[in-house]
């Protein structure tokens, strides 16, 4: 023992020295690393604005770079990769079928892509690099909200318009000037879930008096639940309880026991994926039969993997989605078809948000060219152009791809007409049931196993 102790002291000393040396090296490296990208950005960042702005009429814009920063690697790569596929498809359609940006003499869009990685740091770095090297006036990204926030910090500083496909409400509550979000934010998901249920109840002549709202306790889940709670209160529904739980719970029986005890007419549930399987199975196993259980927040219950994992337990569950692949508008049908043809699968939410977001970009560029022919790509001009848009099914492709069919931006960048589609599991298959149901599909409401007197 003493020998080890002796050794230990000299060991700790040498370890301490080693740590100090490493820290110094990392410090120097970090200094250079942060200086490196900063150095080119300072001289170059004025260049994107100087190239179009001081010599306004002369250089004809023939190509506009559109940035895409998505998690292309790591845990969220599935979403990022699909977003990239969707972006490539839409850019091709804009350039080839729609003849580019007409008001800019048919200028073409060029997609420049960067990998946001898994962490806010990597997302920030990706944004720095993309802006420094490519100078896109508009960037789309980054699906995961914390990555989106990191990208927004950079785009805001560099005055680049960021079209966000991250859904957490707070992204548009930072006072950021150059951000826009066509996609329905988290609370809009909660709101839509409640609107769907209330509309269905009214249609069937049922009265909903009480509800329980439960969500996994991430920021996203929290915002979705808040949206639902506000809407329920608006309808005068009594909220018996609001339960927040960690998504990795081992056992949902205590939660479900509480639901049974409270016995609400409806449950609005905002799960992640793992807990959704657990909760649905436990609700079935414990024999809890409310009028309706509506999911919100686009995770769990109705996605193919959850249906595979939970089987019958998720029958008649619904969830909210930022995109409706079944919306029967001319352009939506066409783009879903083209996506299927090119990639051999149905577009999910990650692709859908990119569909309409990029089409909104096209509309904004047309508008900017119309409003500011001398300097359409100036960030402030672009911002005004986005704010001036008022898109619906008749005047734009973008709105035809959007669940509610309307896009108009508020000054904070959010869509005033944000809303989701509702997907329901019927006979073990997910079907869009609201607001534009799939042909031949009727929403199942109330739950057929509901024991309450209709």
């Amino acid at each position, binding site marked *: 023992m003493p020998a080890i102790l002796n050794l230990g002291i000299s060991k700790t000393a040498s370890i301490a020295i080693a740590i100090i040396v490493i820290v110094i090296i990392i410090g120097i490296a970090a200094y250079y690393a942060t200086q490196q990208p900063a150095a080119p950005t300072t001289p170059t960042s004025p260049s994107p604005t100087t190239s179009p702005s001081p010599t306004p009429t002369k250089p004809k814009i023939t190509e506009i770079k559109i940035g895409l920063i998505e998690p292309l690697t790591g845990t969220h790569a599935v979403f990022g990769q699909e977003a990239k596929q969707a972006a490539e498809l839409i850019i091709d359609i804009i350039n080839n079928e729609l003849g580019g940006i007409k008001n800019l003499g048919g200028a073409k869009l060029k997609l420049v892509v960067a990998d946001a990685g898994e962490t806010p740091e990597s997302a920030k770095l990706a944004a720095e690099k993309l802006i420094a090297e490519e100078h896109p006036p508009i960037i789309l990204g980054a699906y995961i909200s914390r990555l989106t926030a990191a990208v927004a910090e950079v785009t805001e500083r560099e005055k680049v318009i960021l079209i966000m496909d991250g859904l957490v409400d707070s992204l548009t509550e930072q006072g950021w000037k150059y951000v826009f979000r066509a996609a329905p934010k988290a609370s809009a998901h909660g709101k839509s879930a409640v609107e769907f249920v209330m509309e269905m109840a009214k249609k069937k002549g049922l009265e909903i008096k009480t509800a329980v709202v439960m969500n996994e306790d991430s920021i996203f889940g929290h915002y979705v639940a808040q949206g639902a709670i506000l809407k329920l209160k608006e309808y005068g529904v009594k909220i018996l309880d609001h339960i927040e739980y960690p998504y990795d719970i081992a056992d949902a029986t205590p939660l479900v026991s509480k639901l049974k005890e409270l016995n609400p007419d409806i449950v609005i549930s905002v799960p992640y994926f793992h807990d959704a399987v657990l909760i649905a199975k436990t609700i079935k*196993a414990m024999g809890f039969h409310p009028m309706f259980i509506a999911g919100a927040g686009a995770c769990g219950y109705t996605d193919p993997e959850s249906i595979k994992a939970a089987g019958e337990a998720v029958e008649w569950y619904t969830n909210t989605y930022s995109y409706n692949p079944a919306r029967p508008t001319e352009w939506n049908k066409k783009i879903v078809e083209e996506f299927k043809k090119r990639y051999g699968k149905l577009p999910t939410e990650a692709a859908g948000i990119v569909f309409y977001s990029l089409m909104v970009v096209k509309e904004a560029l047309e508008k900017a060219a119309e409003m500011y022919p001398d300097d359409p790509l100036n960030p402030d001009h672009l911002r005004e152009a986005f704010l001036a848009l008022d898109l619906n099914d008749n005047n734009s492709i973008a709105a035809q791809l959007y669940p509610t069919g309307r896009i108009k931006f508020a000054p904070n960048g959010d869509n005033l007409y944000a809303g989701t589609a509702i997907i329901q599991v019927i006979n073990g298959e997910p079907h869009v049931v609201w607001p534009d149901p799939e042909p031949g599909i009727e929403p199942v409401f109330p739950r057929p196993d509901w024991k309450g007197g209709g």
Partner: protein
Amino acid sequence: MISVEPMLLVQNIVNGVFMGLIYSLVALGLALIFGVMDIINFAHGDFVMIGAYLTFLLATTLLVDPTLTAFITMPLFFVIGVAVYKGIIERVLGAEPLIQIAVTVGLLMVLRNLALMIFKAEPRGVPFTVFGFPINVGPITIAASRLVAGIVSLVALFLVHMLLTRTKWGIAMRATADDREVAELMGINVKKVYAVTFGLGISLTALAAALIMTFSRADPYLGLLYGLLSWVIVAMGGLGGVIGVLASGLIIGVIEAIGISVVSAGARELFIYLTFFLILWFRPRGLFGRR
């Protein structure tokens, strides 16, 4: 908020007891390995996770109830356990605790990332079980799957208890646990005892996984959940053999159920660890600590 419905309380004690039985079963393998071999198997929870995936694969390909897959996975996990012991654990038996910890943590990382690689982060579940219905006893509801899982757990705990106390093998195990060198001098083949103990400990995780899959799902991070709980249960039980594991498993189960349902679901782990600290405060060697 603090107004507690008495029925809800009773219901949750029942919920907690059944979940506690499953927790005890999960922790039993860890207790066995730690008790006999003095090795903390940090990968314990991740064996449960791998077991859960295996249960999923077997149940969905053979189309049998998840509980039945234990007949295949338990012997398989015994073999895997022995192999892991021979391949990895035996080499670090006399080594410093830090090395042993590093080895089992390494094993944990391998298993977890293997699952992440093969199954991604998506949850997998067996979409059927014959026990997916509720049993109502007056105002109390028990999910049939829990009842079955609880009974099977109890039987497994009892059998391991009998093995340890009534058989030659068990006596050899306990002798080895008490004093390895003396046991060796008495003619006990310690390496063999260790191999069997490790195999048995791992095969118990397969049984637990099969039962868990009747109501839950497999995901790559399941190991973290059950691993942490197992350590708490073993530490709290104070290495008091099967009884200690059972007692602390039940305490954790009931505290968790009441905490989630009556106070706040978000603070679930708070209740578990506060109870843990409180018990160690009064009984530093655990509920049934000896030595």
